[in-house]
Each structure stands twice: as C-alpha cells, then as structure tokens.
C-alpha cells in the first residue's frame, strides 16, 4: 500500500495564534470574511477563577473511512492512494450531503455554492513540501507527515505525559 499522509495535532501545544488558519487562507488566496478550510476553535469550561481553555485546529482530517465520500451522491469526493481526500468540483452539485456527514464541519461552500475543502496543499505536497498550516505552526502543535511518522509524535507525546505524571 502506498504511504498515507495525515495531520497530527497536539492541543497541549496550541496557543490559539491562528497562524494555521491565516496561512491556509493566504496560500489558497481565499478572500477574508468568507470560507475557512482550516479553523481554530476554543472550548472554555468552568467558572472564574477555575477556568480551563482548550484550543483545537480543525480542517478536513482526511479520514481513513471518510463519511463524506459515502454521503456524496455524485461521487465527487475521492480518497487518493496517498490518503489525501479531494473533491472533484466539476462533479459537485452543491447538495451539502457531505457537510451533513462530516463530523468536523470541514466542507465549505463559498460564492459558487460548490464544496471546497482542505486538499492538504497538494501543490506543496507534490513538491515535497509540508502543507502550509503545519509548515507555519509556531509551536509545533500541528504537524504533518506519513501516518507512521506522525504516530511517532503521538507516542513521544504520550510518553512525555506519562513521565510528567509519575
């Protein structure tokens, strides 16, 4: 099987700087105030002074079993052999079934009404570069690589947390 690419995100390292969100927009030339192919969200809980804040950077997560693909009535969404999920916009009818199916709210609909989403910066990946959002992350909260490579980050992170709690 061809190697699969994926994102890795560590909420403990995210400081809601939104560099990823802005980097995505400028690289893709998306107009401000319109769609977001990547977004940073916050979950706040508790009451002052016992307050917790968590930050999450979300885009299309290029699921192994992508529900959007199953949901799309026209077969416009496909998973490439390298794992990247892309939309063939000429086949999209703008029915938004993919948005209903996606647990991350990743499919976006701009002025033309057709679906757009993160393509993992195919232009960069095919040029041997990291997608813009992960390349720009100032705290290494968001990373990208082949799945076996990002799983090393996850293991490393889990070991650190285990050691810290000892």
């Amino acid at each position: 099987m061809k190697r699969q690419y994926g994102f890795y995100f560590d909420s403990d390292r995210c400081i809601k700087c939104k560099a990823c969100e802005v980097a995505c927009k400028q690289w893709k030339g998306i107009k401000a105030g319109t769609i977001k192919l990547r977004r940073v969200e916050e979950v706040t809980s508790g009451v002052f002074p016992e307050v917790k804040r968590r930050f999450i950077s979300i885009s299309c997560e290029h699921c192994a079993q992508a529900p959007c693909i199953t949901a799309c009535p026209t077969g416009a969404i496909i998973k490439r052999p390298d794992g990247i999920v892309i939309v063939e916009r000429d086949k999209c009818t703008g029915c938004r079934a993919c948005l209903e199916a996606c647990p991350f709210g990743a499919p976006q609909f701009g002025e033309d009404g057709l679906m757009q989403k993160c393509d993992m910066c195919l232009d960069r990946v095919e040029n041997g570069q990291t997608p813009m959002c992960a390349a720009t992350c100032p705290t290494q909260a968001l990373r990208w690589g082949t799945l076996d490579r990002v799983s090393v980050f996850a293991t490393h992170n889990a070991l650190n947390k285990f050691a810290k709690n000892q």
Partner: protein
Amino acid sequence: MTQKDEGTTIADLNPNNKIIPTFCHGCGAAKPKCGILCHVVAGKFVRVEGNPEAFNNWGAGCTSLCAKGNTGPQFLYAPKRLQYPMKRAGDKGEGRFTRISWDEALETIAYKLKENKRKYGAESFGVLSPEIWPVLDTFGRRFLNVYGSPNYLHSALCATPRMAACKATIGFRSIAPDDWSKTKLIVNWGGNCENSGINLGQPNDILNALETGSKMIDIRPMLDPLGAKADVWLPVRPGTDGALALAILNIIINENLYDADFVEKWCYGFDKLAAYVQRNTPEWAENKTGIPADKIRLAARMMGTIKPSFIKIGNGVGDQTNDGTAVVSAICLISAITGNLDVPGGLLGGLPQVGAPLIKTNQIAKLNEKAPTDLVDKLVAPETPKWYQKMGFMPHGPTSAYYKALMSILSGKPYPLRVLNASCSNPLSATRNPRRVAEALKKLDFMFVADIYHASHVDYADIVLPACTSYEHSDQICIKNVKEGTWLGIYNKIIEPLGESRSDWQIYLDLAVKMGYGEDFWNGNMDACLREQLAPSGISLEELRNSPKGIFIKRTQPAPAPQYQRYTQLFKDLPHGKVQCYNEFLGGKDSCDGVSKLNYLPVYQGPPEGIAETPELLKEYPLVLSDVHAHRYSHHSFMQDVPYLREQQPYPWLKINPAAAKKYGIADGDWVRVESPHGWSKFKAEYFAGISPEVLMTKRGWWQGCDELGLPGYNEFDGGSEVNNLYNANEKLFDKFHSQMAKQTLVKISKIEEAQP
C-alpha cells in the same frame, strides 16, 4: 522533538514565478527577526512562507510564521498606503493634503529645521521613537547628534524601564534562561509572548519545557493561552503586581525559603528588606491584588522551593505601571534571594552562550562625538534622572519621556518643543491622553511624518513622506548567531516600492543631504553605508545580495563550556558589588523630575485609581480597566486594516466576565460605554470566563478601518474606542525613576442602546 521536513526545499513551484527571500516586520520595526520567502507572480506579491534557511523560531530548518507574518501581501497592498509626498492643505487635524514632489517636501523640512535651530536652538526639535527601531536608533540618533538635539522621545512603556530596574537591582536583565529544559519552575509575570512575538522562539521553548515536566505559574489578569497551560494562575488585579511581589518576599523570608549562603555572600541590606516586608503579609496583598492569601502562599512556596526557576518579567508589570521600577526590583529580589541568578535554568546573566559570532560586522556609528557635550542637561523631559543618563546607562543614548515631552509644547516648561518628527509612531495611540496630545500637535510650529500608512496623527502633519514597507527595500542586513554557527542575510526588494514611496533608511539619507549633512551620511548612498557595515566580515555587498540563502558559517569548534555564577562581573556597577535588597544605587538620589528623591526599598504605590487604592472613587466607578500591550492580530495600533487579521477581531473588544456583564444588563456582543474619571470610549462586549468579574480588558488602537470587510476605524477621543483616552495622565504620578505611566483605572459601564457602525 522538532519536526524536520524531509525534502523541503526552496524550490520554485512555477518557473515563471519568483521566490525572493527577505524579512518580516509583522512584530514591528524593532524585531526584524523572521526570514521569509516571498512569492512574486507577474510582478505582484501573492504569497509568503517562512524561510527555512533563516534560523527562525526554534532554528535550523524552521518554516514557521505567525498570523501577522502570513498576511504580508495584504500588508503591502493596504489601500491606505501613503504613496506620494504631500503638504497640508487644510487645518491641522482636518486631513486635507496636496501632492508635492520629493524635492519640495525635503527642502521644506530642511528649511524649517534650519530656521528652527537658528531661532530657538537645536533642542526644540524632537523625534518620536516608536520602539527600538533600527533606523531611528542609528540614523535617527546620528541625525539628532549632528543637528545638536538630545530629544529622542522614548515611550517609557517599552522594555527599557524593565531593563533599567533589573540593572539597578541585580546588575543585569535576563530575558531567558540558558536552556529552558533545565528550568523546573517558569513564572510568567505579566509576560505576553504568545501575543508579542509568537515566532521569536519563547512560546515554543516554554511549551517544550512544560512537556518535559517544568511547572509554571502564570500571573496575568486574563487567562491567556499559555496561562491556560500553567499549573497555577494568579489573576492579579491590573497594576497591583507590586503588592503581590512584596507578599511573596514576605513569605519566602519568614518561612526561611531563601538561599542563606547567597544572601550572606551577595546581597546588600537583606535585613532591612526583611524588616520592611513584614507589613506586606499575604492578607495585606489579598486586599490589594484580589488573589486569596492562601493562593499567594502556595505560589510563594513554589518559588521558594522549586529550583532552578526563571521569572519572566513582562511589559505589563515593568513598563506600564506607575510604580514599575519598584515592582521589577521586588520581582528581581525574589529571584536573587532564592539563588536563581546566573545558574543553569535560572536568570542567565548575558547573552546565550552559543559561542562567538563567526561573521563580524560594524554597527552603524551614532556619531556621539558630534553632539554638544551638555546633551543631557538640555533634555526637555528626562525619561530617567539626569545623573543616571550622565552615567551612560541609557542603552540608546539620552532620552526624554515621550508623553512629558509632548506636554512641553503646551506648558512651555522648561521650554517648548517646536518641531517634531512623528514617524513610525502614532502619538494619539502610543501614549496616554490623546486629547491633550492632539492639542499639542496642533500647537507645534512644524511637524513632519514619514510613514507607511495614513495614520490618524498624519492629519496634524505639515509635510508627509511616504515610506515603503520592509518588502520593498534592500537597505538592511540581519545577522543571527546561533549554536550551529553564524548566519548573515540581507533584505531584498521583492517589488518596486508602491508609488513614490522610499525606505525609511533612504528618507533619512535624503533629508540629511538636503540639510548639508551629506558628509556624515554617506552622501546619500545607502549601499556605501551597507558596505561600511559589512567591511569586517570580508563579505562584499554583491556577494551577499547574490546569496539567496544568506551566508552561513558553520561552527566547527564546540562552544566553550557555559559559565555561571559570574557575580563579581554581574554586580560590578552596584554599590558594594552586591544585589541591592536595600537599594543604594537608586535610593536617596534625584528622581527624573528632579524634585523628589528615589526610594531605597520597593515601596508599593499601586495604580492611581484602584479597588483598594481609591475606595471613594470605587463607589461611582466599580470596575478595573486595563489593556494588553501587544496583540497577535495587530502590531500595536497598526494592522487593524489587514483583512485576514481584522476578521479575527472585527470590533474594539472588551473582555468581560459573563457574571459581571449580566449584572449590568450587557449581553455578549453589545456595545458598551466605558467611562473613567478621565473620559469615555465605546467597546463591544465579549464574554470571557477567564477574567475576574471585577476586571475588564481591552486593546488599544482602533483608528484603522478595513475597507475590504467594510469595517470602520474608531477615533481616539471621547466616544471613540481608544483606551488611552481613559487613563490617568497626571505626570506627577508617573514612575519617579523611568517615567512609566499607569494603564489601569476604574470605570463604570453601561449598554449603548443605539446601533453603532
């Protein structure tokens, strides 16, 4: 663990496009640290990314950039860019201008400057300093020296007050430990690195340390993103950090948590300090700071027992409280008596010990020898005491305090400034009391501005010069000395400057030539100046310009073993060669106003208006207001016009605890009238749980509109949205050593019913 990109190259994506390396100024003119790669397609700047050759953030191979850095093209093509020289056509403040030629503009300025010197003396000319801006710190000072004026108007709210208070107490200022991974306790006290320099390394370093087990205490009024990762958050009332620091000293001393050996050998006056802080109990501090006494005890015990620790002293406590010198002194003393000075993982004395630079360059000389010898005596409003300035301790030469100097225009005391260079700094938002500042600007004989944007203060200028952005010039070099070696890069003009705009460097040279100072200013030739800077490196300007990856000299010899505990050297300027627990360096000497004397001990003053400080006022104004100094979606008061950034914060925001908001009938998103004893401004409520119900926080500087998003700018006066309109600007209350001004006050709030733009 650092991500390493396999196969990442600076390869061009399209052979018809150009990728040009240069430097980002998203953190402002003072911090041109992040190398960038600019993609230019058909002569237009379209995309930007971090330059992996430029040792950004965590170093070799790093491609990161912050949100601001990612908006380069929008920054360059901003609709409100100044593109042509102009002269004022209407009244001051009205904003009507006529386009003129560069020659006419520069000749007018030169004529006025010469006339002013002849009529009123050179010292009646002042220049606003935005920050440690390389152009001003070199060419600007050189120009002042040759002209003969000392009046470099420094903001008194930047890093230098902190630096000075650290030096006066422990002999040095430490901005980072030698290695964060050795630090077992990180105390972030009013520091704001996840807002003020996200890509400059500290957030990443701190997160690495937390990942490997460091503890962290965060002391800020809001639960900011890094605070959310801390073990302990102390939500201090704005402006009361001095009380907290004294109580922590009280606990550490009374519970014998201090390093007795260090205190014995290296601290002067410890017993006097110990006796003094007996009054500063945790209960006393609870009343001032709003932090429960037991929580103060918990934090103090952590600081007394977890070693090594590094206390990062931020702008919020050192530079923006009117007792900043005492606050910083007290915090430095916590580090000192717990034995955390110049130890591995503690407060490193001096620069990171990575080895000597392998590329040598010349600093641009300031020509201090050309200046009159009585420069300090002629300062219109000394930022620090004259005796201190005469000792040569000011890092950038003699300075007057920005706000006080502007007020001389109105008071005429000791003499009025008459001509002002107000470039790269908007005084209506960069200091307090915009109403009085505007009156002062109107009263000036002559004001000129070189800026990128038509900022709100530009309306008061007589002559306006268009400056280009950092993307449009090739006039600056950047050198980085890191553990792997030394890297040298140079700015590259990625497109021709818009309109007739010129680089700030070239503008100074051109003006100097018109003044007849050509001989001292390379006869207007910037390349000649760059060659002089490069001379000791053996690298020619052509070679550097032809090296798109910059020039890197790899370190072949390992750096010498780091040195620690260099106390004789670090304390050499301090009385008795010791840490000043009882401060004889400052104590008993003249203050900056020349009237009162400075304190020997870090006496708590507190904010000019506060919950515990002014109980009478509290009855009418029940809430505390303050603001963040730097922000991740703007640069000070600039960049509100950048669409990608403005959409993140469309309106002047006011963080308010939901419980407090409901008490005043304010819903999330309502416009709120915020009124202090000094003025009123309007902000949009944003519910936020991570702030005390008695505190409100906002951000200054909303004068820029954003055309693309159809969002307006808001002015600096009553009814606008400038927080500086609300603070106490009584000069008598400013810090007596370094002129710091309070940015904390009491306010009352009410919902604005009418729709607002």
